[in-house]
């Protein structure tokens, strides 16, 4: 009798786990609007350091402090865009300058 019920129990457990994961995702607003998603992200960010501390106390060892990286992808991207567009905008005048210089050099050689 146990052998007959076991597959059903296994399937029921699987459905519970998968359904629970789906429900947790839905309930915490991860599947909703973009505003709800950013709220959840903020909550998760705020909840990570205490959780990490709890785990550290439980295991009894210290994680090395994460180094503060002073890199901002936003600033890097913005400055990259500005530099590329500026380079594109000065290309015609730069090219004409170099051409003139080159022609002048060749003229000087033939003099």
């Amino acid at each position: 009798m146990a052998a007959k019920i076991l597959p059903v129990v296994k399937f029921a457990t699987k459905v519970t786990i998968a359904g629970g994961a789906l429900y947790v995702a839905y309930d915490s607003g991860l599947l909703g609007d973009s505003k709800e998603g950013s709220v959840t992200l903020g909550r998760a960010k705020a909840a990570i350091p205490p959780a990490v501390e709890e785990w550290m106390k439980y295991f009894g060892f210290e994680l090395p402090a994460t180094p503060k990286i002073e890199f901002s992808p936003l600033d890097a991207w913005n400055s990259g865009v500005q530099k590329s567009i500026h380079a594109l905008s000065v290309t015609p005048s730069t090219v004409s300058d170099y051409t003139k210089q080159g022609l002048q050099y060749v003229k000087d050689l033939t003099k």
Partner: protein
Amino acid sequence: MSEKELGQKWDRCLADCAVKFGTGLGLGIVFSVVFFKRRTWPIVFGTGLGLGMAYSNCQNDLRSRYVLHSKYFSFEQK
């Protein structure tokens, strides 16, 4: 839409994209392990679903300024 508002909308879009990507990936992994014998396709499917949801949210958010709100009337020819 002002520049500031547009920038905020894009920021929300990117954050939402990251959240939905992670959620889709996570749920795909759960389903793959639990139901589909650790095959790859549920993970890819879940990630795709997440990215699709993020795209749709972004689209609605960026369009919301220009959506016309009106009532529809039906006329009958007599």
